């Protein structure tokens, strides 16, 4: 029996070898490297002779107003994503669910799925065009409505318009997997439960809050943590639409990291920001695991 078990183990390790080679080289090694680099003064001038400087990079970023403010900006984007974007996905999933299986429901579903297969860059560039000051769609629309005085350089006029424009990008934001997940959740409910609630005189509103919404709570929790973890790292829209501006008004931590590392060549500073973000994400993950455990 024993040699057989050994054979089985050997076969298993052989199967796992590629996975662990990839993970080791491209995930684990870089993780330790990131921590090491964060203690180095490493930039373009001394690229071949980086210098150990202890915590000095961390001291520098925590005294850097751009870095500190970037978290305030990030909080706005995260709050928006968690409340508005999630809310719209739940709403869309619920509305489609209420339609039952009609051809119209099928059409609407397809309409919301199509944008998912459009490259993200294509839709981001569309929104860049949408806000463009001279030929952009928003100013053009305002012009045709006779509202010339409302026209603005949306992405550059002020922090308010720039952040507002970034938040509105992608309206109505349904092109995610979110609404499919919620729709599947709503559909999994036994119809008789809802019927009997109706018989007892519950309104549609009550049925939604008391029966349907609690039903998708597991999905909601999962997407919340995914949105948080993804959102903390996100900086694509800011990079492409506003480049973090005007000034540093729309700079989020991820963009601070990217610019420092790859535009200013400050690899140590960038890594210190990366480790900081990692610790925040880890904290959220642990809190989330605790929270999920205590509830079940």
């Amino acid at each position, binding site marked *: 029996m024993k040699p057989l*078990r050994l054979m*089985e*183990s050997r*076969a*298993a390790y052989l*199967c796992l070898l*590629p*996975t662990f080679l*990839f*993970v080791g*080289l*491209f*995930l*684990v*090694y*870089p*993780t330790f*490297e*990131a921590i090491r*680099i964060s203690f180095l003064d490493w930039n373009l001038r001394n690229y071949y002779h980086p210098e150990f400087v202890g915590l000095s990079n961390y001291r520098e970023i925590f005294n850097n107003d751009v870095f500190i403010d970037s978290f305030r900006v990030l909080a706005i984007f995260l709050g928006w994503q968690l409340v508005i974007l999630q809310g719209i996905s739940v709403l869309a999933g619920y*509305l489609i669910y*209420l*339609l039952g299986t009609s051809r*119209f429901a099928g*059409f*609407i579903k397809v*309409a*919301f*799925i*199509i*944008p998912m*297969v*459009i*490259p*993200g*860059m*294509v839709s981001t*560039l*569309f929104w*860049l*065009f949408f806000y463009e000051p001279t*030929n952009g769609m928003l100013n053009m629309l305002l012009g*045709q409505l006779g509202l010339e005085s409302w026209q603005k350089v949306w992405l550059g006029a002020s922090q308010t318009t720039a952040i507002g424009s970034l938040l509105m990008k992608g*309206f*109505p934001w*349904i092109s995610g*997997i979110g609404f*499919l997940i919620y729709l599947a959740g709503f559909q999994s409910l036994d119809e008789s439960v809802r019927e009997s609630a109706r018989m007892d005189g519950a309104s*549609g509103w009550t049925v939604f809050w008391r029966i349907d919404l609690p039903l998708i709570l597991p999905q909601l929790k999962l997407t919340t943590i995914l949105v948080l973890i993804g959102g*903390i*790292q996100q900086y*694509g829209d800011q*990079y492409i639409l506003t480049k973090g501006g005007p000034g540093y008004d729309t700079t989020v931590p991820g963009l601070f*990291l*990217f610019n420092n*590392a790859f535009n200013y060549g400050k690899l140590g500073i*960038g890594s210190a920001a990366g*480790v900081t*973000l990692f610790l925040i994400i880890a904290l959220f*993950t642990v809190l989330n695991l605790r929270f999920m455990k205590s509830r079940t």
Partner: protein
Amino acid sequence: MRTKAWSRSVNVALLLFFAFCTLYPLYFMLISSVKTNAELQSNFFGLPLDPQFQYYGSSLNKIKTYMSNSGVISAISAIGVLVVSSLSAYAFARFRFYGKDALFFTLLLFLMIPGVLTIIPQFVLVKNLGLINTPWAAILPYIASGQLVTIFVMRTFFEGIPKELFESIKIDGGSEFRCFISLVIPFALPIILSMGLVTVLNTWNDFFWPLLVLPDQQKMTLTVGLYRFMDQQQILYGQVFSAMSLASVPLMVLFSFTMKFFVQGLTSGAIKA
């Protein structure tokens, strides 16, 4: 009964409004792709009066290299992810070995390493390996990070295959390899396909990594190429919009044939992982 009809029409109106807002950008992109700059300004929202189809030819000329670069990277990454993760998932689902739970838990931990932490050292690593401006600079890290979720989804799926089927192959003298090839792969084909499609979508859409590791004009991926297109000083809008439309075609075609698998892959990945 009247309130029910009323709430249904509000529902339908809201969904129609959302659908309109979702699809209008695509419609606008298509009608603007054949307009000159002058016509875009004079006839902004209307259908093109004098369609300039030659924009499609010239933009295709410019982006075809980017497209084939992206195609090669996405295809090899997806195949790589599937091969590597199906092996691991098979080991976790079928074999008993020392340290099995510990190794699986370790993989779970790796899933939590965020991209912002590794982007700088990964770049230094890829640079030191001399991979900059080769497709491998993108493919290898894509396989490394894409395999993890796939392993979890596949493991659950492989475990659901009835044990009796394995035993009947074993009794006929088939090897473990035989089980993998002629039982597990055909059985799990839908999930394999859908995880492959998810990988294609993710790699095709990635922007920052190829921006860093494939800066050469000849090696650039589609997302980066499109971005550079819009970044120019003198923008020919018709050409930009036709390039954007063309860039959407490959995935549209791929996914219109495989939508069922794709949706299944996305939702099962999100729920089970």
